[in-house]
């Protein structure tokens, strides 16, 4: 280990974040590899190592002959200060080598609040943050992940965006870069060739013009670059790579357990949910393979906890059989099995009761809206009866704490819908009174609200976000309505983060200046309240002469050219618009299992969709 780094590690909190050397970390011989890939996650080690996508792509890349993929995470403030003080450049955890000498520096973008982290990490690496200031002597900077579905706010900083699932696309990118290296292509030449790989978006090959009102006028590809970039998917989940032998961190991370991926996509079609649209079509793994992967992963990792992760786990058709199979292994081996993202229905509840052996911790449900009308409008397929029946089962079974999540500011919402949240929470309370086996123990019902953020590639991509004042008014309304209910606690998220997310989620290229200004003024790790400053961001907008409310509070026209229109996730724009109209009529769209409503995503998989 580098002496200076060693000294630095003595001065920081949780140094194990920065050492590498974990079990199963891939260490290759520098002499035998010809391609170095830095997989960067613009948040802390604990968050990044909990990301299944990182583990998958790390495995896929390291399986390639001659390629060495290493991990890099955003340093916490104390470590960043030390790195800047000593001048140590950001390094790959596996080798300790500076990533500025690597061939590719790739970022995984999961949430907008990590954008300043990208700039900060490039800078810590000793690289120019703007793509225009880099050339073939610098690593190629790429990015992927769910935020890449609207890549425009980061277009000035990133050379290439990889849209969609990376298992097949990234190796193709690496091979192309290798060829370019061998043949001595210029950066421009490399970018032109990369743009020919399906799913690759090279922002510098496109020219954008604006109208006087600030909306987009045109979006023109340079000769040869595709006009539409279609996301990549893995067609067959049974053949997709799963990281059985994955890195076991030597320090605690957020999701410190085996994560099985049952399927990709979601059959539900909640209209506010970006993941529900961009991960279509639905593709499942077979239960036999999952059971084997789960057991092998426990044996290989030593984890004694396993979770079944997918967007809506209870929609996996053979879930009961899979759980039975896994429990046969888990119980005798002291491995606990858990299900996240539960739906409030009988099926999920009975399954959960079977899995829950020990302490009964809190239950969480996300009805999202307070009235049936609004739940229909957002296509959230949960009825009051479903929810109350689930709560009854839970209370009877000994649970005494329930968390309910809602969004305020959903399209078509009225005050009646807001007050409906209070009614629903009260009904949950009365349900508890009716059936609690031990009423003396009391009950804790927690209601949480956050401010709805309209996202690209959803039926609400044309919508305005509530103003922060409007959100606060609704919060006050709800708070007053719940004032007298001693057993109900009301928590609300502050709207400032949601506001900024809304700007970045549907922003265009002009935001680059704002992001850079905020970062130069000290913004980093914005997902952490320790570091986030709303004022700093507003200052950056003022300095750049951009009005954030243009992005946040404006309803887009049906035919407006949207900044992300060159990217398709497979779902047709007309389908999204139709869904929006259904919302305004408070009409639900049946889930994909009841009836395929023709979103178009199955075209990406030869017409096959497991929905």
């Amino acid at each position: 280990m580098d002496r200076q780094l060693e000294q630095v590690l003595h001065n920081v909190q949780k140094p194990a974040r920065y050492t590498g050397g974990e079990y199963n970390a891939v260490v290759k011989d520098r002499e035998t590899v010809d391609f170095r890939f830095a997989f960067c996650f613009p948040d802390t080690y604990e968050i990044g190592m909990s990301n299944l996508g990182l583990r998958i792509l790390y495995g896929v890349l390291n399986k390639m002959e001659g390629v060495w993929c290493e991990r890099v995470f955003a340093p916490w403030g104390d470590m960043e200060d030390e790195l800047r003080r000593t001048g140590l450049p950001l390094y790959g955890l596996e080798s300790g080598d500076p990533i500025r000498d690597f061939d590719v520096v790739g970022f995984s973008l999961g949430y907008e609040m990590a954008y300043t982290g990208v700039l900060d990490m490039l800078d810590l690496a000793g690289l120019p943050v703007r793509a225009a200031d880099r050339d073939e002597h610098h690593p190629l900077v790429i990015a992927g992940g769910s935020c890449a579905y609207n890549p425009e706010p980061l277009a000035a900083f990133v050379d290439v965006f990889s849209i969609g699932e990376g298992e097949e696309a990234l190796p193709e990118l690496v091979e192309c870069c290798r060829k370019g290296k061998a043949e001595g292509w210029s950066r421009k030449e490399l970018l032109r060739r990369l743009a020919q790989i399906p799913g690759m978006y090279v922002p510098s090959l496109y020219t954008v013009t604006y109208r006087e009102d600030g909306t987009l006028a045109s979006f023109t590809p340079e000769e040869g670059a595709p006009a539409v970039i279609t996301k990549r998917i893995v067609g067959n989940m049974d053949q997709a790579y799963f990281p059985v032998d994955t890195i076991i961190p030597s320090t605690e991370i957020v999701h410190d357990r085996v994560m099985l991926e049952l399927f990709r996509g979601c059959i539900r079609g909640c209209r506010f949910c970006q993941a529900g649209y961009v991960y279509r079509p639905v593709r499942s793994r077979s239960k036999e393979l999952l059971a084997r992967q789960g057991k092998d992963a426990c044996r290989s990792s030593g984890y004694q906890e396993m979770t079944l992760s997918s967007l809506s786990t209870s929609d996996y058709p053979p879930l009961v059989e899979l759980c039975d199979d896994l429990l046969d292994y888990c119980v005798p081996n002291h491995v606990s099995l858990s299900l996240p993202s539960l739906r409030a229905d009988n099926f999920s509840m009975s399954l959960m009761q079977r899995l829950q052996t020990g302490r009964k911790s809190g239950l969480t449900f996300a009805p999202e809206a307070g009235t049936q009308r609004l739940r229909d409008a957002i296509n959230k397929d949960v009825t009051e009866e479903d929810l109350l029946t689930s709560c009854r089962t839970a209370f009877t079974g000994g649970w005494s704490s329930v968390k309910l999540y809602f969004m305020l500011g959903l399209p078509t919402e009225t005050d009646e819908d807001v007050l409906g949240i209070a009614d629903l929470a009260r009904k949950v309370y009365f349900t508890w009174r009716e059936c609690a086996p031990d009423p003396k123990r009391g009950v804790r019902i927690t209601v949480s609200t956050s401010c709805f953020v309209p996202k690209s590639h959803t039926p609400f991509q044309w919508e305005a976000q509530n103003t922060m004042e409007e959100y606060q008014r609704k919060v006050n309304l709800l708070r007053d309505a719940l004032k007298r209910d001693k057993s109900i606690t009301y928590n609300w998220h502050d709207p400032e983060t949601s506001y900024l997310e809304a700007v970045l989620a549907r922003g265009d290229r002009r935001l680059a200046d704002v992001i850079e200004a905020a970062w130069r003024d000290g913004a980093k790790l914005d997902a952490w309240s320790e570091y986030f400053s709303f004022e700093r961001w507003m200052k950056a907008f003022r300095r750049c002469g951009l009005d954030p409310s243009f992005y946040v509070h404006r309803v887009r026209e049906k035919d407006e050219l949207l900044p992300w229109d060159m990217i398709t996730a497979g779902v047709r724009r007309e389908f999204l618009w139709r869904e929006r109209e259904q919302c305004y009529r408070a009409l639900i769209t049946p889930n994909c299992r009841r009836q395929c409503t023709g979103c178009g995503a199955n075209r990406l998989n030869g017409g096959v969709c497991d929905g």
Partner: protein
Amino acid sequence: MVDHRLLFEKAGRARFISHLDLMRTFQRAFFRAGIPIKHTEGFHPHAFISIALPLSLGYSSQCEILEFGLQAPLAGEEVVRRLNGALPEGVRVLDCYEGGRPIKQLAFLDYRVDLDYPEQSAAEQARQALEELLGRESLVVRKKTKKAKCGYTEVDVIPRIRSWSLEREGARLTLNTVLAAQNPGLNPELIVEALRAERPELAPELSWCHRREALDEAGQPFR
């Protein structure tokens, strides 16, 4: 319950694994090595292990002791072999044996403390200064603690030092010292702290602590 012991070393990058994290690492390592060990009772049974005398973050050691219980008999060499294939870089099991003396008989720890200076002359001055400090009747150091209101307690290090010697090679000064292990023990860092407090100008650039051996009351290796 705990009828077996491991002797292991912690070095390299693994020095930055905290005590709690190291326990978790071993629990998982046993599991992935396919060595069933005894579990605690209760709702959430977990593999029971205990590591004697936690090592400070950043220190290396070649004499760490871990206690555990085997569920089924397995030869010591086999435990060592399998575990070493299941541990992260820098943690290496040296021996596995049955029984052992009560941990409370672990009386002393033998440390090597390396102090690095920018140049030879500074290291030489530090050698003389430490010689003087350690030769005193009493040497009181402030030790940071969360318990005391003022944020520190005062510790006299001298009674907890059993032996010491100093040698210098170039710009590196090495303190070889045997210190009380427990009730109460002495962290060698406090000796460096004493030097920093008494002679701030002779604070080393870097210091490295390494545990060489665990000893019993008679000064014999403790196992």
